[in-house]
């Protein structure tokens, strides 16, 4: 056991925990952040993704001791009571079926749009390709990403900065 400091969604936490523990279980079971979910435990499906240093990474295979940087989870995307444009696009396009994978879809899309605000269709397919959905909501995920990209582009620069994790 050792003391680990984590900053998640703007809040700092100190935990006394086995350093090899994958981040996912700490987020879900110790910090009550259950947006990230266990899908495969192998880093293959994306259900557990969180954003660290601008990249959407699988938290199921990441030892907590290796985390360097602030963590953003699905719960941290909304600001001042307003959903992130991606989340709103997900509602407008009625994206999920069961919704179990959508944490991964949204977090991967956010990391992509933060780096590349105007992705082409091919770039969307490529960036999202490692994030799986067994209900096959892919077509709507791609549509919603394009919708959110438009919303973000039309918003003020201030808002654009605000949504970068």
């Amino acid at each position, binding site marked *: 056991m050792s003391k680990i400091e984590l900053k998640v969604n703007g809040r700092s936490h100190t935990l006394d925990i*086995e350093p090899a*523990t*994958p981040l996912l*279980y700490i987020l*879900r*079971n110790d910090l*009550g*952040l*259950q*947006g990230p*979910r*266990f*899908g*495969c*435990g*192998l880093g*293959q*499906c994306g*259900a557990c993704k969180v954003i660290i240093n601008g990249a959407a990474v699988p938290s199921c295979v990441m030892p907590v001791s290796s985390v360097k940087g602030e963590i953003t*989870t*699905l*719960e941290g*995307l*909304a600001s001042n009571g307003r*959903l992130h444009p991606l*989340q709103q696009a*997900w*509602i407008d396009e*009625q*994206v*999920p*079926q*069961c*919704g*179990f*994978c*959508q*944490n991964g879809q*949204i977090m991967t899309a956010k990391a992509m749009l933060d780096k590349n605000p105007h992705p082409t*269709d091919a770039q*969307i*397919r*490529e960036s*999202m*390709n*490692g*994030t*799986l*959905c*067994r*209900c*096959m*909501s*892919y*077509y*709507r*995920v*791609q549509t919603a990403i394009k919708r959110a990209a438009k919303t973000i582009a039309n918003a003020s620069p201030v808002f654009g900065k605000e949504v970068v994790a």
Partner: protein
Amino acid sequence: MSVSAGVPEQIEEALVTHRRGFLKSAGLLAVSFGAFVGAWTTEAVAQSSGGAKGAGPYPDPDFRQIDSWIVIHENNSATFYVGKTDPGQGTGTGFRQLMSDELDIPFDQTACIMGSTDITVDQVGSGGSTAMERDSWPMRRVAAEARRVLLEMASARLGVPVDQLAVSDAIVTVKAEPSKRVTYGELIAGKKFNITLTGNNVNSVTGQAKTKSVPELKNTGQSPQRDDIPAKVDGSLKWAVDVKLPGMVHARNVKPPFACAKLTGIDESSVKGLPGFIKVVSKGNYVAVVCEREEQAIRAARQLKTTWQKPSTAPFPASEDLFSYMRAAAPISASRPLLAGDSETRNPESRPIVVGNPDAAFSGAAKTIEAEYEIPFQGHTAFAGAHATADPSNGQMTVYSNDMKSYGMRRCVAAFLGMPHDRVRVVWMQGPQGFGRTAAEDAGCEAAWIAREIGRPVRVQWMRDEETAWDTKSPAFLVKMRGALDSDGRLVGYEYYARSCDYNHLGYNEPDTVLIAQLMGSRRARPASGSASMPSDMYAIPNRKMAGEVVGLPIVWETPLRTGNLRDPNGPQPTFAAESFIDEAAAAAKTDPLDFRMKMIKADTNDDAGFRRARSIAVLKAAAEAYGWDPRPSPKPIGTGKVLTGRGIAYSFRGQTVVAQIAEVEVNRQTGHVWAKRLVCAHDCGLVVNPESLRHAVECGTLHGLSRAIHEEVRFDTEKVTSLDWFSHPTLRHADVPERIDIVLVNGDPNPNRPDLPPYGAGEASLKPMLAAIANAIHDATGVRIRRVPFRDDRVLAALKAAGV
């Protein structure tokens, strides 16, 4: 505002309290009606439920009481309680639309609670696309009856006969004097209806009131947004995987390393010193490790040393030898005439269907064609492993689960543990969609058994390799077909002969087939025989012979190759063969494949089948029009470029729901890669309750069919499954998705020309023709017929090379 897919346990607490008028827990009743979703955590509820409510027993809600279905609140809103689960198709929203229409209450003033066995009547849960077709009817009749009773109450209150009253938006007014009014809430909130309905079972339950005709339905046919989606995208939804209870511990299974393995030893010292270790629990060949924390249980289960003895015979052939094994195997249920004592409905395929004189048709044929098709085992591969949390407090058993048939799970757990039915309840919560897997759910019994063993709440979840290897499988099919063409190129003779590897097909939540029961040795004496289904009876072919037989693997218990119901069970396999073969016949006749089909569909409206064929013609035409189908024979002249393009069509029906699909594919002749660039799905399921939800379900079902066509296959050696993750049992990915998908709802929204057409099942039907549509498109593009699913790059490339393309 809705709670249908939210947090049933919390809602249950507040609303049961509200409804029954006891347990005036200030903390619970202080929660306002609109604040249920996301307002409470499961921990809070679990901690608050240590009192009377949590203690049980849990008698069945009486389906003959309106009060079991509908509660009207003071603020003139209503909560509907239905015995269904919504794994993500939006059925909960659909029920609200239909019930609010019958009750005459604004849609936005309703909520729907689903699937928890102690507060909703048993309507089985979900499955078979029956939500609208069958299960919405009792809901509608009860809502209509509640409206009738409320009008009578208003009549007494206002002193005016019922026929002089009008009702709109849950407000009753006197027609002649509209200022005289009373709301539903004022009439009944805080009281019960106390109205007993009639009907022998939940499907036939009814009151005196009649349901409305389709043109009278206002919300039905509209597309209000699904009420479960906001909490699914902001992270506030509490799923079955999210349940936390005081004192809860974590368990992970240790699966046998090969099929039918006998446990010969457990070395507990291999895990005893691990942090958080509590106990190894075991009975028969079932083993699990229990730890304080989740990651500790995962580690301990991996580290536990166990020894196992192999069975004396190989449990199954390796996957590459499966079809030769199936060809040679002796059938378990052979085609034979119906014998006295046979069930007519259980296994209709056990006797051949003969129409006309097929032998004469073949002997007089101008041309005969034959083909053989192979469809492997395909996994359910739910997005996350089976999971459940069980709480043994107070001598009861509460299981938190995403089992789509929660009522069946309750019976299964009670029977498996030998507990009285009313001591067990299942609280249904959302989970990863399982396509039938969550109706043959294993984790519920496992969690309940371990919880009873150790006397603490236990959370169980299967790991990825465990789920992909040991989940239920869609049976492998081998289909031989023959066709006789006359000199005019008409298909006058047709033979279909299927073998399915489906012996010991698992039913829903059976206490003597659930995996833990198999491993513990408490299993039934005789396996279920499964089925080798026929294709739908789609064409008027004058001479036909169709038969199916089931074959079994050498060992059918305690094996990961256990078959179960995967989305339209045993529908896609025969349809792949049958609709590929019709295309082969059209090619042999050098005829456009759509035209070839159309000429064999004889419409009439005299009976169900004729009615369905009439709608089939409309659906095929709609698909062709949406695609811009240009009539010509297949294949088209083979191009010279790196990428070859082609289009294919296939159609089918499931019940009265008719689906036609067209695929346009690109085939890379250098890599064998198939990309479905464009898909069209025309769909008629009668009355459409929510067009947007329906489009979504059809779109996702169509893509699931595409995934099964190009990716999915269970691989195994002679003792274990070797496809264990998302690379070895792949699924569709973002890059596979067509650039355009058109969903055409032929039936309209709803169709004014057929105002009283009832809703038929939607969802599963849209998988059925997809495999053949893709195969037909590959043939159109390349001239090469792929008769083996899935159409993976290496298989397609080998076929192209063999054909010299």
